[in-house]
């Protein structure tokens, strides 16, 4: 009950900020614009981190760590390191291009409606792959704190997010997401510290005991394949390069006033994410000592929520559980709102340009599909599914953005071929790994986390096909604009 109450309060607070947050900027002095520009970098970094820290980070990371060992922390490394790539390669130029989404960028750089539509389809694929684990997380958490069946949680989550967007809950997305970052950090960090203190000396010793051959091995072994180096490399590649191509991340850089600020924001995000990822590790380490039973039950994704009750019994335990559950719910709410907005944007704006976009309808439709996909997905690990979303982003939008920004020679044909090959290879491999079981060996790694081969493949196809044709004549000017320091230098 406490858990439901905490989640309800959190939801009410974020709705209030979403709808009335715009009014928080209410200023009647002439320099209100200057003020809002000054506020932006800090809030913006928090907003990006808030949107980015999803159920995968709050629930999935600790769960996967419990299941697969310390090597799972490479996910956290990749999630954070992705922002180094974002800051270095795309944040500033994207900001200068004026493009708000990846389909916009494709339109700007290549001037083709076909590629725009193709990009919009890929946005849908990535967003749905990313939404499913979020909804799953919501279903699992709700099941834990109130005992409702899994499907109730999923359906409820879908309706809550849709309703909150429809009611204007994302109007001031920057403030909502910033608020959610703070909530997530506090609601994960405070119980974590409390639990460390409360666990007792023996348990702390036990948690930190390293045994390099087994669970505490520093590399990540996917599905017991026996190829830890390859698996680690593939996960790192997917998460690092995937962050470059995530549609809902890219649009956030537009809040920055200038390209330099956009880069500074990206650096701020790295710091915020680095701080955050300290805490899932705490839950993973302690979970191994206190809740080893979860591994056998297959419900490792719940470890973050279960753990407080195991360590601190009684009233305080349920309060802590409620806090953590609310944090997890915040993660789910903020990320899936951001994802749904990006998805609905693609659905309503890029794929059907004819009429005035029906955004709310698109949000509802997107949420419905995500809910339907999530219902049978209970056994899929949160982080694994998110890893797929990153792998698809890394093998489609990452090459498009990186080559589009840094190479004049990119042609329409090259981009189309690369995008098509990337999305088919990455989703095909993910599907194959769900449907088949090739046994231990490198093949299972290449299917379960395909980034290691799909990313180089997509880059190669894009480059080779581009070299065969001639780039559009405005390519030079379009690229120059992306790198020119001031708008005046563009013409």
């Amino acid at each position, binding site marked *: 009950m406490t858990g439901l109450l905490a989640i309800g309060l959190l939801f009410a607070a974020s709705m209030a900020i979403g709808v009335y947050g715009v009014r928080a900027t209410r200023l*009647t002095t002439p320099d209100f614009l200057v003020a809002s520009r000054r506020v932006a970098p800090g809030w913006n970094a928090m907003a990006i981190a808030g949107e980015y820290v999803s159920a995968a980070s709050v629930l999935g990371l600790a769960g996967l760590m419990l299941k697969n060992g310390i090597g799972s922390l490479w996910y956290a490394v990749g999630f954070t390191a992705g922002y180094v790539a974002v800051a270095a390669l795309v944040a500033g130029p994207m900001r200068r291009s004026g493009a708000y989404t990846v389909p916009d960028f494709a339109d700007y750089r290549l*001037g083709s409606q076909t590629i725009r539509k193709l990009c919009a389809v890929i946005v849908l694929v990535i967003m749905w792959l990313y939404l499913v684990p979020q909804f799953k997380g919501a279903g699992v958490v709700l099941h834990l704190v109130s005992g409702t069946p899994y499907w109730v949680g999923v359906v409820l989550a879908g309706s809550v997010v849709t309703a909150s967007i429809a009611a204007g809950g994302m109007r*001031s997305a920057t403030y909502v997401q910033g608020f959610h970052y703070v909530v997530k950090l506090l609601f994960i960090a405070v119980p974590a510290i409390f639990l460390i203190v409360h666990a007792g000396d023996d348990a702390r010793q036990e948690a930190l005991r390293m045994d390099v051959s087994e669970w505490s091995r520093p590399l990540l072994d996917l599905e017991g394949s026996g190829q830890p180096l390859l698996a680690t490399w593939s996960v790192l590649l997917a998460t690092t390069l995937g962050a470059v191509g995530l549609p809902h991340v890219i649009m956030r850089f537009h809040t920055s006033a200038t390209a330099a600020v956009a880069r500074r924001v990206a650096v701020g995000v790295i710091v915020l994410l680095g701080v955050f990822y300290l805490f899932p590790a705490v839950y993973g380490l302690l979970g191994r000592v206190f809740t080893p039973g979860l591994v056998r039950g297959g419900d490792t994704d719940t470890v973050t929520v279960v753990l407080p009750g195991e360590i601190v019994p009684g009233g305080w335990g349920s309060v802590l559980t409620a806090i953590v559950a609310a944090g997890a719910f915040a993660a789910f709410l903020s990320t899936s709102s951001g994802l749904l907005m990006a998805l609905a*944007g693609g659905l*309503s704006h890029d794929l059907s340009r004819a009429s*005035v*976009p029906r955004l709310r309808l698109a949000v509802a439709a997107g949420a419905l599909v995500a809910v339907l996909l999530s219902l049978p997905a209970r056994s899929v690990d949160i982080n694994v599914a998110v890893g797929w979303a990153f792998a698809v982003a890394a093998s489609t939008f990452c090459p498009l953005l990186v080559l589009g920004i840094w190479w004049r020679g990119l042609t329409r044909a090259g981009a189309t071929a690369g995008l098509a090959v990337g999305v088919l290879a990455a989703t095909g491999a993910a599907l194959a790994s769900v449907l088949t079981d090739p046994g231990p060996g490198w093949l299972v790694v290449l299917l379960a986390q395909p980034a290691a081969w799909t990313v180089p493949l997509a880059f190669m196809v894009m480059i080779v096909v581009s070299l065969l044709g001639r780039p559009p004549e405005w390519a030079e000017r379009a690229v120059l604009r992306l790198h020119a320091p001031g708008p005046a230098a563009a013409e």
Partner: protein
Amino acid sequence: MLDRMRRERPDEAKTARVLTVVQKIDADLQDGLGGRGAASAARRLRRLLGAETVVLAGLDGPPVAVAGPGPQEEELAGLLAQAYEQATTAHRPPWTAVPLIVAGELSGALAVRGGADAELSAVAALVARSLDHAALRRARSRIAQADLRTLRAQISPHFLHNALAVIGARIRTDPDRARTLLNDFADYLRYSFSTQGDYATVADELQAVQTYLELQRARFDDRMELTVRMAPEVLPVAIPFLVIQPIVENAVRHGLEPKPGPGSISVSGFGEGPLCVIEVEDDGVGMDPAFARAVLAGERPRKAGAAPDGGRNGVGLANVDQRLRTVYGSEYGLVIETAPGSGTKVVVRVPRFMRGVVAN
């Protein structure tokens, strides 16, 4: 009968091919005779006519485009001169030149070596029509720019006078405020008259709105309350120049000015997925929805008891509406929600990104 029809009708594939080529020639000539596509058009014409050489020439200077083995210069010059002088087809075997008459004016010639006469005059007419289209296209974009210039020039003399009078009245009593107002006035003029670019960021537009409203507030003795609510993510969005300011000006002049007692005006902006929404709301006298519709349609209806310059009422709004439609497509026009006595709300809803829309 059927037999004859079949004989007369060329086979479909050939017709389709010819029509495609004609379309492509039209596309090549979309920048006029001086455009980049002229050479490609000449090549296509040569293939279409099966001629040895095709020359596209302007009224003066060397030929714009030559496809095939080049002609003797004096030979061609003589031929063209003859064609221009008589304004009819000129023959100098093996050459033929047809003058291109675009919108009733001689503007060039098509010269061909080795081509059938009948075909040639038909093709020349086609080329002339393509050139006419090109000219119309250029004219259309000139009109859009002229619209913007009209709006810039429309800064009301009343407003200028009132602003200066208000500043003058405060110079002795409140010199600090007068100084600020004068700065606002200067900023406002600089923005309104700035000739650079067709697009500005929402932030720039709002700055102009702010300076305008500060001046109006001084006139109203601060009886007017102003609220700005902006989500920071829409500030850098590029929108057409002078879109928000005319709406606000309209709200002040036709909503608040006729209203006795205090009034308030609020400008708010937020993102809605891929769209950027800006709302300007006032609690002034409002208007009849039918009247609003007529204003947007550009009919400038007469309103009973309108201000002396009431004929100009809403020209700003109609102009903004038109420009938004030109830039973003017909579904992105202004939306006006109003009723007599209950204020007016004007909503601008535009995509955050549109190819070619970049703030300067």
